[in-house]
């Protein structure tokens, strides 16, 4: 942040927040979010229906209304670096009730997509990717389950990519097409060593 008035650094830092609009605003961010989410966060009038509908809000500092506001103002860094971004359970209650016909849930999903582009993502999401890359399943089979399946008269492995591993190749192709596996491996390695 440029020091425009020669304030001491501590004060400069305090004042930084009030200058959000000038220094951190990215109008492109608003447009990108709208494109990915296919909804209209710029129409938000901040009534709070979304936050009040949200199962996560009462037990955390997550406020979906705040994220929509950040989308509207183009506050990209603030939106994408906030760890609360990952507390949306995607229950779509806010979307059902929003009087302005915005889909706040999809706004969150779009922001998560953009965060991933900056390598901001919780590791558990990437582990799902790794699991699917190997087996085609996010929650793979195990031996206890195989035994139980057999007892029920079902094949030990279901007729999915588990039973027909040749199909895993197609899945790997798609994930590689988007370089998802590569990025997932890299980020997981960076985080966990």
């Amino acid at each position, binding site marked *: 942040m440029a020091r425009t008035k020669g304030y001491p650094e501590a004060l400069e830092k305090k004042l930084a927040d009030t200058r959000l609009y000038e220094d951190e605003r990215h109008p492109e961010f608003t447009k990108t979010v709208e494109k990915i989410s296919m909804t209209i966060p710029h129409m938000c009038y901040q009534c709070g229906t979304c936050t009040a509908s949200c199962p*996560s809000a009462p*037990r955390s500092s997550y406020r979906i209304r705040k994220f929509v506001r950040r989308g509207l103002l183009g506050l990209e860094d603030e939106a994408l670096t906030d760890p609360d971004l990952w507390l949306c359970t995607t229950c779509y209650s806010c979307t059902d009730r929003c009087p302005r016909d915005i889909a706040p849930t999809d706004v969150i999903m779009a922001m998560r997509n953009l965060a991933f582009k900056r390598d901001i993502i919780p590791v558990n999401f990437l582990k799902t990717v790794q699991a*699917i890359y190997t087996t085609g399943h*996010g929650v793979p089979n195990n031996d206890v389950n195989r035994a139980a399946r057999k007892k*029920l008269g079902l094949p030990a492995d279901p007729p999915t990519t588990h039973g027909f591993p040749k199909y895993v190749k197609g*899945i790997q192709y798609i994930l590689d097409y988007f370089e998802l596996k590569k990025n997932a491996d890299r980020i997981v390695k960076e985080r966990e060593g």
Partner: protein
Amino acid sequence: MREYAFFLGCIAPNRYPGAESASYKTAEKLGIKLLDLEGASCCPAPGAFGSIDLNVWYAMAARNLVLAEQMKKDIALICNGCYKSIWEVNHKLKHHKELREGVNEVLKGIDMEFKGTIDVWHLAELFYDPAIVGVQKIRDSVKVPLTGTRIAVHYGCHLMKPRKERHFGTTEHPTWMEEMVAALGAEPVEYRNKMLCCGAGGGVRGYDLVHSLDITNEKMINLMEAKVDALTEVCPFCQLQFDRGQIEIQEKFGVSYNLPVLHYCELLGLAQGMTPQELALDLHGISCEPFLKKVL
């Protein structure tokens, strides 16, 4: 006999095989034959993949859809999460030319093309639809009525919401699943805030387990208030969150509820005379014994 390609997903076959087994058998008794959808994968998980990159989500779901298109069969499935991925991507790709072209560009690499020739259904909606099965037919198929039990319903989120894109009508006070529970001879029970999310979705279960369990815990408190014998749902992921979640809640919060949680197909299986062994109810985290005692 109507035939559908049965999209299994992950959790039902790999954690609750009883739900899978029950689906085949109960559906068959109601005139629906579920066929293997060979080579299907994870739907993929809408929370995880949708959060990372929606384009991957579209492409992966489209691959599963194309498998069914090649079979020339509509898809039936038993999981709300799968419904979101498979139904919604099918719907979006059918209506957005740009998205469809993008996805087909990817699928070209594995010799596939999304054409948009099939529809996607949740087995529960096929059961409820009087043109296909209907409540009366369910009632007629019952051999062991679940009389004397109080059962609450958890609808889950991704089947019916967002309301405008779906076709289920109200998402504030739905009662169609209660009707299906009543058809089994049980008493459907209303409880506070029944449309509240289970807490697992959107990757939250993996990201912040305690947070997600806290939501589940709120549901459990509301359910206990209503004095129910069991909870039923149509989503194995919700089932996992309620069933295994109760154990985790006990670990983290020190509260135990011991409320049996059954997929509607399992419940239907019981009512149609399947044994608990045939439903692998012993694989559940929470014992179904107290409930079974009331029924059998």
